[in-house]
């Protein structure tokens, strides 16, 4: 290690290092991170590698130690399958609607809560509740509220004349996905609201005031000042919502199991039913890998957009 590199090392310099003690040498960081790294290796990295391997094999859940190498067969098969293409489309709809609606609602609620008023702290806390509620409990109450015979949602819709015939929203290929979307967004909007609220509070008030003084209207002030300063937060939230939506499982699984007739089957639901209903671990893994690759593309794309925006700003 050269002297120059040592200059850049944070923390105490060589003179204060206790020689002979393994805790103060260049091994110190490894000593701190080794247990966690080992843990992540065993429970995340190795299993993921196994899934990658499985995706190139034919393996049955009933005899999982016996795999036959089939190359890209699983991938060519799923992409040739019209049902899988529909799964991709449903995943796309689910993710896009979740992102747009969760961020949009979050921004509206944040703007509503941004002005000081008495009881704002309480309002902010109460708004957080849906996000804190466990997914299992949310699924359960949603199923009960959507109960065809006694659910409050159907009673309400009947009263205002918008009742779904038969009332079985979650059994309807047409209404099941919207119902799941509403439930998901209900659970997400508190998070986006609270994050955007703190971003709004960081907008320098002298800038908005100056814009107003110069005669800018509310909308143009919002666009020129507020939006510019919260844009990075909006981008970050859109990324988070995308990744969370791509991996969401319990809520959909418990509410519809991907049904009726595949109307709510996203990639993760497809992967789980391939593994545990069809017992095809190979194609399940291939479906999972498609999801992972989609997430990676989204992350890479978002970094690209963020860099381009930085260049434009700088």
């Amino acid at each position, binding site marked *: 290690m050269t002297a120059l590199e040592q200059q850049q*090392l*944070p923390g*105490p310099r060589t003179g204060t290092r206790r020689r002979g003690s393994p805790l103060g040498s260049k091994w110190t*960081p490894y000593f701190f991170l080794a*247990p966690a790294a080992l843990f992540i290796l065993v429970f995340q990295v190795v299993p*993921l590698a196994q899934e990658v391997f499985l995706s190139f094999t034919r393996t049955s859940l009933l005899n999982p130690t016996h795999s036959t190498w089939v190359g890209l067969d699983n991938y060519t098969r799923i992409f040739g399958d019209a049902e899988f293409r529909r799964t991709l489309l449903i995943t796309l709809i689910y993710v896009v609607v979740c992102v747009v609606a969760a961020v949009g609602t979050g921004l509206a609620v944040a703007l509503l809560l941004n002005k000081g008023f008495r009881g704002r702290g309480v309002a902010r806390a109460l708004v957080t509740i849906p996000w804190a509620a*466990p997914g299992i409990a949310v699924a359960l109450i949603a199923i*009960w509220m959507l109960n065809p015979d006694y659910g409050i949602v159907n009673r309400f819709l009947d009263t205002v004349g918008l009742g779904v015939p038969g009332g079985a929203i979650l059994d309807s290929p047409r209404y099941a996905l919207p119902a799941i979307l509403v439930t998901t967004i209900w659970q997400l909007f508190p*998070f986006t609201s609270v994050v955007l609220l703190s971003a709004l509070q960081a907008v320098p008030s002298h800038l908005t005031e100056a814009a107003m003084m110069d005669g800018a209207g509310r909308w143009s002030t919002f666009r020129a000042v507020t939006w510019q300063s919260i844009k990075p937060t909006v981008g970050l939230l859109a990324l988070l919502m995308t990744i969370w939506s791509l991996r969401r499982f319990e809520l959909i699984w418990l509410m519809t199991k991907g049904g009726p007739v595949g109307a709510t089957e996203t990639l993760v639901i497809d992967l789980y039913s391939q593994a545990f209903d069809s017992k095809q671990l190979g194609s399940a893994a291939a479906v999972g890998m498609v*999801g992972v690759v989609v997430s990676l593309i989204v992350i890479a794309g978002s970094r690209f957009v963020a860099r381009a925006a930085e260049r434009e700003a700088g």
Partner: protein
Amino acid sequence: MRLPHIGLTLRIVGVLVVLGVAVFPLYWMFVTALSGDSELFAAKARLVPDLSQFGVFIDALAEGKAATWLRNSLVIAAGTTVLSIGLGIPLGYALSRFSFRGKVLMTVVLLFTQMLPEALMVVPLFALFRRFDLLDSLGGLILVNSAFVLPIVALILKGAFDGLPREIEESARVDGARPLTVLTRINVPLIAPSLAASAVIAFFHAWNEYVFAVTFIFTPGMQPASVGIAGFIGELGTPIQTVMAVSFLFTAPAVVFYLFVQKYVVAGMTAGAVKG
């Protein structure tokens, strides 16, 4: 001067609508738990809870199954919290205070693993757990839940360490304190709010976890509440009031704890992701 009043009224109405939407489903869970049979199925639903029915909560717990579920969830969640914080503190500290070979790789792995769905990892982990005899045990769930929540915990704690001035620990190091002593005696107490937030995230990650629990646990007496409550779906034997009462008991702790630390949780979760 009438316009501002209209604006204010609209704002108040808007806030009330948002609060109503946010709170109603859980309120409805509570009302349903406290309704009589005839009220549940009457043409006109009861909209306010009947507090005289409060015994339903005590009955739900006394009946035994629900109490066992909640106890199992508590064990899993407490174990996950201790383990993931115990591993996350040194990892976050190493990422914050040292530059070393492999640091970028470690950070990328931490960010990458956060996007892996549990449903994808459940098959290989099942095989691993069978080999090491970890199936059907609460300890096995503690291990796997800790692995899944560790990345976010470590990144939150790294952010917290980043925010601490270096001078304090540098002077302690000059005085001859070892790195481990510096970490445990000086730094950890200073990041208490972030620790609390990470602990809440880790605890309720495990408390809510369903996929691994439903796949790895076979003995009914070992089931956590997430699995037990999900088992009510499609099952007709249990009265809906009991179902809602147990769900409410399962939900209430999560809501209460998140309310206390929500500010730090939100800051930590976004900070953990910003670095991506």
